[in-house]
């Protein structure tokens, strides 16, 4: 188990992104767990540069799509175009064919485009005119959305949100960090300063090792109890799905790996739980109206205080 990788990645990202260590770590956890991340935050709080720096330091091919309301699925996945030289239709790959895709402002794209991204995220492949094309491995989507936008947006439905392994909310930096950001950006900041810290073979080895991180039966039972408790929770109208729990256990394993262990503990589960579960839970509207709850992450934390982990 290599514990150095986390430090290397965080230090490279830290060259251009200030005060986002936790978010960078979560990106790494989700990447090692084979998932996709939804970054939520207002414009200008380093969502894009964080994703770009991350892809650079893990040595992945990176592409960015700026989602707009007039977009078509073809703009993303590609399509068949007629080649006049050989007089045949040939498939021209869209930007979705990459290792790390930044889907900027995903909620501005119409549902048809969003659902085209679903197959890519879930299956690691896209189907155009009945022909299925495999996407490169590893494959990760980092999508961003602005929670303050209400006009001209198409909110992601529950089934699409469930595809994101984590939702990470980026808040405004504190005063000291803000000053540091302004000071550092007096000179030109560029992701070119970020060095690649992993090569393809190392990355493959790490992804293989994460798969070997063990999860005991008692830990599985603990996760099941968490799921059950979320479904019994009165303040929720929709609890955690089995897929949510699968994502949670994968993230816990990745966190264990980054902590230098080859086994997952309740600590690993707890550390990633709010990021993995909160966006999949639906608050009960009467509880919201009575002021009993306003944030799903609070409910997640409460559930974890009630369920006894194996000790």
């Amino acid at each position, binding site marked *: 188990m290599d514990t150095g990788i986390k430090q290397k990645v965080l230090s490279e990202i830290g060259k251009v992104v200030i005060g986002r260590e936790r978010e960078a770590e979560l990106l790494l956890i989700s990447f090692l767990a084979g998932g996709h991340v939804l970054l939520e935050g207002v414009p200008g709080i380093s969502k894009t540069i964080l994703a770009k720096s991350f892809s650079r330091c893990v040595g992945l091919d990176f592409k960015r799509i700026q989602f707009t309301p007039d977009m078509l699925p073809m703009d993303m996945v590609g399509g068949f175009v007629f080649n006049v030289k050989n007089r045949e239709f040939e498939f021209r790959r869209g930007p979705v064919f990459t290792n790390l895709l930044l889907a900027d402002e995903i909620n501005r794209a119409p549902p048809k485009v969003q659902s085209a991204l679903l197959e890519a995220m879930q299956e690691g492949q896209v189907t155009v005119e009945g022909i299925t094309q495999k996407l490169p491995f590893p494959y990760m989507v980092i999508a961003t959305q602005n929670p303050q936008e209400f006009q001209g947006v198409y909110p992601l439905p529950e089934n699409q949100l469930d595809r994101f392994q984590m939702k990470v909310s980026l808040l405004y930096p504190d005063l000291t960090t803000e000053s540091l950001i302004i000071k550092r950006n007096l000179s030109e900041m560029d992701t070119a300063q970020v060095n690649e810290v992993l090569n393809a073979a190392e990355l493959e080895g790490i992804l293989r090792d994460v798969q070997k991180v*063990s999860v*005991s039966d*008692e*830990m599985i039972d603990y996760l099941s109890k968490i799921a059950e408790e979320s479904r019994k929770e009165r303040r929720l109208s929709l609890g955690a799905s089995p897929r949510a729990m699968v994502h949670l256990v994968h993230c816990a394993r990745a966190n264990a790996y980054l902590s230098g*262990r*080859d*086994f*997952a*503990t*309740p*600590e690993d589960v*707890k550390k990633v739980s709010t990021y993995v579960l909160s966006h999949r839970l639906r608050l009960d509207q009467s509880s919201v109206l009575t002021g009993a709850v306003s944030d799903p992450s609070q409910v997640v934390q409460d559930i*974890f*205080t*009630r*369920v*006894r*982990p*194996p*000790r």
Partner: protein
Amino acid sequence: MAADGAAAVSLLVGLLALRTVRPPVVKDVSDAFQILNRTIERFVPDLPVGFTWGDAMERLRGYGVEVDWPRMESTLAGYEAFRYGGRDMPNGTGEEAIVLSTQIRRKLIGHRNKAKSPF
């Protein structure tokens, strides 16, 4: 007079018993951590039912419980590898866990039914 004397002696004995916390006898590391677990559950009421070992260690450190924390962490790591990772049980009797357990009880004796931890 004799009755008063007997009452005073029994009160004294009772008080001494409260102040003296004998370290429990343990078989192995697992036993030591189960005792520590029960001690925390009973004597640190502000930790919720769902606490993890990490939560407990952080809380007890914050309270200023005096144990050799690096040794305690190393013992805990060995126990966790056994408990969650299926490794062999570490050698020894988990002395640090017992020391911590005794420290908790020594500080908290007489406060066990109060809602707030007196650390």
